[in-house]
């Protein structure tokens, strides 16, 4: 009988469960496109996706491709991996970006040193496929 220790289960990456509202956003990610929901009534953009426009209460909307540039609004450097999947990546930067399209996106910022982080620094979105269905956004310096 083997006395080798049983390997710990490999931690799995938490993955999004798209909703009926958010599916077009995730479909866009997979195609390398940043898709945002626009109100059919007043034209305003909203993120995250939801059924009703909070400005004009229209229930009709469509998704349109948005530009992928933006600027740092704030950030954190994650050292403690609250989910063990991220242990190998830590420390990693999660930057909250003011997208040029008028919404914000939180994602990992890659290739930028902590010392170079500043509010207003320009970045652009990249796309990282993690499996057949899911692609996640990240940012690099513009």
């Amino acid at each position, binding site marked *: 009988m083997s006395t080798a220790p049983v390997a710990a289960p490999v931690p799995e990456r938490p993955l999004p469960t798209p909703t009926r509202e958010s599916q077009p956003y995730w479909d866009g990610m997979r195609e390398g496109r940043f898709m945002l929901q626009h109100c059919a009534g007043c034209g305003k953009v909203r993120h*995250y996706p939801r059924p009703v426009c909070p400005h004009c209460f229209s229930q009709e909307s469509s998704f349109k491709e948005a530009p992928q540039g933006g600027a740092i609004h704030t950030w954190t450097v*994650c050292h403690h991996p609250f*989910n063990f999947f991220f242990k190998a990546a830590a420390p990693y930067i999660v930057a909250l970006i003011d997208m040029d399209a008028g919404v914000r996106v939180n994602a990992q910022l890659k290739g930028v040193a902590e010392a170079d982080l500043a509010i207003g620094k320009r970045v652009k979105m990249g796309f990282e496929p993690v499996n057949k269905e899911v692609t996640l956004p990240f940012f690099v310096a513009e």
Partner: protein
Amino acid sequence: MAHPLHETAAVSGIGETAYTRGTPKSALALQLEASLAAIADAGLSPRDIDGIVPYFPGGGIAEDFIANLGLPDLKLSLFVPMGGATCVAAIQSAAMAVATGVCNHVLIAVGRTGYSGARVSTRLQQFPQFALAAEFEAPIGMFAPAQLYAQGARRHMDLYGTTARQLAEVAVVTRQHAILNGNVVMNKPLTVEEHHASRMISDPFRLFDCSLESDGGAAIIISRADRARDLKKPLVTIMGVAEGHPESPASIAQRPDLLEFGLVKSAPRAYEMAGVGPKDIDVAEIYDCFTFTVIRQLEILGFCKTGEGGSFVMDGRIGLGGDLPINTHGGLLSQGHVVGLNHAIELTRQLRGEAGRAQVKDAEVGLVTGYGDMGDGSIAILRRAA
């Protein structure tokens, strides 16, 4: 005309378990132990409880309280799903119930095995309010409150020059207060150097900027003021109470101003209901899931201007003997994490004159806040009635 909730309800009973790291008891058992202590403190029988607001998720639900305490005629069972703002917001719900005559004595109770049971990221998966964070932020490595709130703290530091030294001051003073209390998880002094040397969790939050994961239970009873007057303990009335919800409540990322918490809305309403202002507050128990959260709430509460919270906490101002003693029990940072119900308990003790070595001299009016669920904010202003 006074608001119909102004001083029509009172905190009539308070109860706590020991705050520990490790317990063989279930969250429900802790919640019931604290509940029985609060009922005894008020001089009531469990049979008198006719309303219940259990903290949820975690611990028991109304059915458990009926089954364990033999409640003969429960008239109200509520959940207040506001995370860390729940307990103080529940004071508003309970006050409404007793002021309208629906209930006589409403029990608010928390039981938590945050150390020996499921940890924070796991617990939050149960919150529907965290569904957006789970979909859009957890996959990129961002889900725990320490991470989500760190971005707001970083922005405050960048915009206003708030420093790690100032964050440390909140942790150090809170620890000093905890040591006076006795029933605390962290009972050894903390220095600024130890704070700065503690490991980084999510920049700018170091370990000692973060609240504890602990085991324990806490409970309070809200009664109609005229009934509470005849009970065992000195009368502590509710002068003002309010809950507030921020814009983009389930996503901090999309909030126009990350630093505009629900307290921005609830604090002015509570002050107005109470008929007092920041200058009248003798002692404040501020929800302290993180050191920075205290600093920002002090600004919102009007003790200083936006951007000045960091300098406000320095120079002994928030310690015993200072202009505004805060978290005189040790808070979530050093006493234990029972979602801030320990803050309401401590404020009641202060106003009764039962706070022992941490007693603020002649404390008459005090406030307690709740903060959580990505920025919901609740507040209650209590008074020692003559």
